């Protein structure tokens, strides 16, 4: 029993002045609490696994029959009832927009986080920035779309850059806040040792702090990318959508996977809905590939080896 429940020394020590009975019941209560907590943790994990499997099973079941080479390499046919064709125009659009958004938001967000943790510590500006980053994560994505629509689309028209701008705004606070949490975890001794050797702050940050926090930052960035890749509402208002592959960055509406999934699912014809589910699967796989790449990268650069 005790081998299972405790790496700890849970053996009964007799305390002076406490009756053995009381000790035993206390001990019992402690063990029950411990078991209950373990059961709770296992239970929580199992419960969370259920929707995960349900979602993936269902998407795979609905998406796989339509998912083939043609789907991955062709644009949708000019027909909602015709089978065949695919969402390559959406895939390209999503890659372009998420890529652009990451190029904007990741450097900006990580630098901002560095400011919060290293330079602005305790300063009111840092407090304000941190506070409003939290606020920004709560801004509904459709609202971000609305803003970009007013600020960029009305003067310049729909386009990839406008979609990317909306996605970047959605990603930025996530990158800032998650990077900040990771940077905060870098042990102080590490930095102090660096300073002690005469390194400046800049060098300490780039050579000691960032490499230590990099795997964690990557996780945060992946969360942000995953969120951006799946955003639907803001893209409807900024990138709109297209029927064919678009490579122009400004002034021409461009398709994206989530918007195609969304519109496809509302299509009355089975062919359109089938494409929508395959699109959902494709979108999921795309994000999976990103996550895997990040994992490989971060495991290669793992600081402990």
């Amino acid at each position, binding site marked *: 029993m005790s081998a299972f429940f405790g790496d700890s020394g849970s053996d009964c020590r007799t305390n002076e002045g406490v009756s053995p009975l009381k000790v035993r019941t206390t001990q019992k209560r402690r063990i029950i609490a411990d078991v209950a907590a373990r059961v709770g943790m296992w239970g929580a994990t199992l419960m969370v696994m259920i929707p995960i499997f349900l*979602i993936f099973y269902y998407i795979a079941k609905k998406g796989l029959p339509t998912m083939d080479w043609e789907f991955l390499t062709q644009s949708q046919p000019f027909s909602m009832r015709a089978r065949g064709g695919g969402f390559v125009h959406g895939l390209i659009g999503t890659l372009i927009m998420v890529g652009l958004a990451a190029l904007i938001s990741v450097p900006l967000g990580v630098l*901002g986080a560095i400011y919060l943790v290293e330079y602005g510590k305790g300063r009111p500006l840092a407090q304000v920035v941190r506070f409003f980053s*939290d606020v*920004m994560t*709560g801004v509904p994505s459709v609202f971000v779309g609305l803003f970009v629509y007013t600020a960029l689309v009305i003067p310049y028209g729909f386009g990839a850059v406008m979609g990317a701008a909306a996605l970047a705004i959605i990603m930025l606070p996530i990158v800032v806040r998650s990077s900040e949490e990771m940077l905060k975890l870098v042990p102080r001794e590490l930095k102090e040792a660096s300073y002690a050797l005469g390194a400046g702050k*800049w060098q300490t940050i780039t050579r000691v702090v960032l490499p230590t926090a990099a795997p964690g930052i990557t996780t945060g960035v992946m969360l942000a990318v995953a969120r951006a890749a799946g955003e639907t509402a803001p893209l409807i208002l900024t990138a709109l959508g297209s029927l064919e592959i678009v490579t122009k960055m400004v002034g021409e509406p461009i398709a994206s996977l989530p918007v195609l999934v969304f519109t496809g699912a509302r299509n009355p014809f089975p062919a359109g809905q089938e494409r929508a589910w395959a699109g959902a699967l494709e979108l999921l796989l795309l994000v999976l590939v990103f996550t895997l790449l990040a994992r490989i990268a971060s495991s290669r650069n793992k600081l402990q080896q």
Partner: protein
Amino acid sequence: MGERRDLVLRGGLQRLMKRGAGRLADPVFAVVTGIAGLAVLIILAYMVVVTTYTAVPVFRSQGWSFIFSTDWSPSEGKFGAFAFIYGTIITSLIALLIAVPLSLGVALFLTEIAPRWIRGPVAYLVDLLAAVPSVVYGLWGVFVLLPGFLQPIATWLSVKLGWIPIFAGPATGLSFFGAGVVLAIMIIPIITSLCREILKAVPVGEKNAAFALGATRWEMIRGAVLPRAKAGIIGAVMLGLGRALGETIAVALLVGSRAQVTASILQPGYSMAAVIANQFQEATGDHVSALVGVGVVLFGITIIVNVAARVLVWRMVES
């Protein structure tokens, strides 16, 4: 861990010593990071200005009833957003009630008690949950979760516990409850993965100290891990809440879209983000300003929520 730090230290510092410290680079870098930090404020301020400017006509014509009235009928030019505000808060609360214990459970499981071989796969699976686009959550919610799970549970609750006002029937699947459950599933990976990182950061020494005092693992978690991680966990929960407050498509698909204020969570309701998503594309004129106004109010609410959370964290840190 120790060895890892050692390596980084030696590796980085040897290079430092070779190059010498670039004194000029330091202030430049400081300014650059400061500007990046400011970018968040600038973007947000610009957003607030642009949107508030758009919403002003409606704020002016509706006055306080914009926030406190439930009468939302665009065709009559009446815009009272209270039902949406209420719905946003209720669905987010339901989501938090479900998601926080579960996420914390999973995070503790992964960091404290899980067998080593299970940690990687479980953590990865939970992270995958974050990758599911909200439109897919919504569709899955309507076609799988609603008939197979939400509807039976809602019916059961209304039959067995219907005498409690919050479970009053008749139960509709599309409801505050339905939207809350899906929101919970959506925010679980966010809270879990952040909590996990935070729990991992609790020094091993403190844990061992607790064990050395004879604590069981749960006592160690309660005594050594949770107090230290509390502030971080609240931060993680706030990020989850942020997502729940602003989630659009999935809620729009599941909340039932009825602008009403009811005590029962089994009744259809509405949320602020959902009403924007549902109505914006068809809106013209004042209706557009009103929807933008709803967004501005949502801003306001997230600010209030954040202030509240911050006060909580400060209190905890102090005590």
